C-alpha cells in the first residue's frame, strides 16, 4: 500500500501488521519531498517522525494496535507543537518554538499518531486562498495554477496529493470547509467548543474551531474521536461528552436553503443537484427552507472576526516572543516597527478594520450591530432546525480560482465574498461538514452539510452513507498518482 490509502485503511494495515509505521511514515516523507512544488508544508519533521514511527512499531509488536498508533498526521502550523516551530505562516512567528503542545496535538500524540510536519496556511489564518502565507502560496494538486483555498490550504493540498492520510485544520469562517471543497477532500468544522482551542494561535476567539481533515467522512469520525473533548484549559470548551456513533440513522428531512442557491453558477449547481438526487435515493426527504439573514453574514463576519483579531494580535509586541525590530529608538518605535515588519498586508488590513469597528464613536454602529445581527443569523438556523434535521448547501460559490484571481486586484472584498456559504454556520457556532460531490472542468466541487449543535454524528453518518453511494471522494489528481 501507499499513503494514498485512507486513514482507516492505514490504521487497519498497521493493525494487521501488513505494513510498519516506519514504512508508512517513510513513504509519506518520500511523497512530501517529491511534492515540494506544492509548498504544502512549512516544516517537515523527518527524523523525529521516523523515530516516533519506530517506537510505534515496537508498541504494536508488544501490545497490539490501539487508537492511531503509528499513523502519520500533519498539523496545521497554527497548532503549538512542543519543540517544533509554530509559525502561523507569519514572519512574526518565523522562529517561535512553543514550550508546550496544543491540546489537540497532545491528544493525537497520546493516541499514537506520528506528526510528520506542519502545514502551510494563510498568515494567522486570515485568507481564503493560502496566498497570504509568509512562506509563499500553496498550489492545488488538481491544477498547480490554482489556489487550494484557505486558510487550511496546506493540509487540504497534502491530503489531495496523498502526502498524508490525516491532517488537522482550523475553521474561523470556512478555513476547513472551503479548502476541502477546492481540493476534493473531506473536512469537518465541529460545533464551537467541541474541540479545545488551547494552544491554537488565536485569530477570532468566538469563531475559531479546530477540526479534522481527511479523505473520507469515516476518517473524519476516527480523527475527531481523538481530538474532541472537554478541556479545562479552554474556558469556552464544551462539556458535551464524546460524539456518539449511532449504528443506524433514520430517514432525514434535509433542508435546502434557497438563499444559498440563488446566485449559484451551473458549474457548482449541477453537482449539487445530483447530490440532492443521491440523498433522495438514500431515502431522505429534501425540503426548501429559508435563512433570511444570509446576505448579512459576510458583513457581520468581517466585523466580528476583525474586531477579535485586532484584540488578539495586540499581544505581538516584539518583547516576549516573535519578531523584534532592530535598534528601536524607544519603546513605541519597538512596538510599531516590530508589528509593521512582522505582519503581512492582509493581517494589517484586518487589524485596522477591527480597530475601526471597536473605536469610540463606531463601536455600537459596527461591533454592537454585528453582534445583534449575529443573533438573528443564528435564530434563522434554530428556526430551520425546527423543520428539518440537516441543511444541504454548496461549500463555495465556484471551484478553485486561479492563483492571484481573488487577491491580485485592488479590492480585498472580492476574496471576502467567497466565504458567503461558510461564514453563517461559523457565526452560529454550528457543526458543518464539507465533502466532494463532483467536478467542474476537472476541478472538485464540494457540498456542505450543516447540523444542529453537537449533531456531528448525524452529519458524519449522512456523509458516510453518501460516500458509500458515490466515489467522488476516491478520485485523486493524476499528478498525485505519479508521486
Amino acid at each position, binding site marked *: 500500500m501507499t499513503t494514498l490509502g485512507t486513514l482507516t485503511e492505514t490504521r487497519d494495515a498497521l493493525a494487521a501488521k501488513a505494513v510498519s509505521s516506519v514504512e508508512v511514515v517513510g513513504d509519506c516523507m518520500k511523497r512530501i519531498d517529491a511534492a515540494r512544488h506544492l509548498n504544502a508544508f512549512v516544516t517537515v519533521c523527518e527524523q523525529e517522525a521516523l523515530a516516533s514511527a519506530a517506537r510505534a512499531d515496537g508498541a504494536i509488536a508488544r501490545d497490539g494496535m490501539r487508537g492511531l498508533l503509528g499513523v502519520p498526521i500533519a498539523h496545521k502550523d497554527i497548532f503549538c507543537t512542543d519543540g517544533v516551530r509554530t509559525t502561523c505562516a507569519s514572519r512574526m512567528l518565523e522562529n517561535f518554538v512553543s514550550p508546550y503542545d496544543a491540546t489537540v496535538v497532545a491528544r493525537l500524540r497520546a493516541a499514537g499518531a506520528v506528526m510528520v510536519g506542519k502545514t502551510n496556511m494563510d498568515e494567522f489564518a486570515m485568507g481564503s486562498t493560502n496566498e497570504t502565507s509568509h512562506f509563499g502560496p500553496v498550489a492545488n494538486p488538481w491544477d498547480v495554477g490554482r489556489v487550494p483555498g484557505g486558510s487550511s490550504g496546506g493540509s487540504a493540498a497534502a491530503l489531495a496529493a496523498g502526502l498524508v492520510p490525516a491532517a488537522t485544520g482550523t475553521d474561523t469562517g470556512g478555513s476547513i470547509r472551503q479548502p476541502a471543497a477546492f481540493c476534493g477532500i473531506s473536512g469537518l468544522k465541529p460545533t464551537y467548543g467541541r474541540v479545545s482551542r488551547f494552544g491554537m494561535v488565536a485569530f477570532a476567539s468566538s469563531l475559531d474551531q479546530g477540526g479534522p481533515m481527511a479523505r473520507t467522512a469515516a476518517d473524519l469520525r476516527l480523527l475527531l474521536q481523538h481530538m474532541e473533548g472537554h478541556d479545562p484549559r479552554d474556558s469556552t470548551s464544551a462539556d458535551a461528552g464524546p460524539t456518539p456513533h449511532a449504528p443506524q440513522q433514520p430517514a432525514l428531512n434535509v433542508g435546502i436553503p434557497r438563499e444559498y442557491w440563488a446566485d449559484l453558477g451551473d458549474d457548482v449547481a449541477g453537482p449539487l443537484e445530483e447530490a440532492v438526487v443521491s440523498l433522495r435515493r438514500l431515502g431522505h426527504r429534501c425540503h426548501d427552507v429559508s435563512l433570511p439573514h444570509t446576505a448579512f453574514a459576510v458583513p457581520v463576519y*468581517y466585523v466580528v472576526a476583525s474586531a477579535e483579531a485586532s484584540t488578539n494580535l495586540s499581544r505581538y509586541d516584539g518583547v516576549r516572543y516573535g519578531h523584534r525590530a532592530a535598534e528601536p529608538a524607544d519603546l513605541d518605535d519597538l512596538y510599531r516597527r516590530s508589528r509593521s515588519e512582522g505582519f503581512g498586508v492582509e493581517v494589517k488590513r484586518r487589524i*485596522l478594520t477591527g480597530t475601526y469597528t471597536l473605536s469610540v464613536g463606531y463601536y455600537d454602529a459596527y461591533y454592537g450591530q454585528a453582534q445583534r445581527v449575529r443573533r438573528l443569523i443564528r435564530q434563522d438556523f434554530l428556526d430551520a432546525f425546527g423543520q428539518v434535521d440537516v441543511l444541504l448547501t454548496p461549500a463555495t460559490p465556484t471551484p478553485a480560482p486561479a492563483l492571484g484571481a481573488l487577491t491580485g486586484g485592488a479590492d480585498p472584498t472580492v476574496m471576502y465574498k467567497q466565504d458567503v456559504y461558510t461564514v453563517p454556520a461559523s457565526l452560529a457556532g454550528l457543526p458543518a461538514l464539507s465533502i466532494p460531490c463532483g467536478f467542474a472542468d476537472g476541478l472538485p466541487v464540494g457540498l456542505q452539510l450543516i447540523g444542529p*449543535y453537537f449533531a456531528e454524528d448525524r452529519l458524519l453518518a449522512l456523509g458516510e452513507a453518501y460516500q458509500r453511494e458515490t466515489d467522488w471522494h476516491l478520485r485523486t489528481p493524476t499528478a498525485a498518482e505519479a508521486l
Partner: protein
Amino acid sequence: MALPGNVVEKLLRLSALSLEPHERSLLKGDLDKIVGLIDAMQSVDTHGVLPLAHPLDGTQPLRTDAVTESVDRDRLQRNAPLARDGLYLVPRVVE
C-alpha cells in the same frame, strides 16, 4: 463609502502599526471598500435584539482559585528576542 482622510492615521496609532506613504493610500482605499461591504448590515432592524457574544450563549465558567500550571521561565524566555538574567529587555522608558 469613503472614510475621513485622517482616520488611517488614527487607526495606525491605535494599532501600533506604521505604513510607508504609498501603502497608506492603498490601505485607505482598501478600508473604504471593506467599510462599504460591512455597512450592508446597517439596514437590518435590530431593535430589541440582544447582542450575541458567544455562539451558544455560553458564559465563562470559574475554576477553583488554585495553582494548576507552572512556568519554566528559562524555557519560555528562549523565545524572547532579548532577555538577560530572567528579564525581558526593552528600550529605556524611565530616565
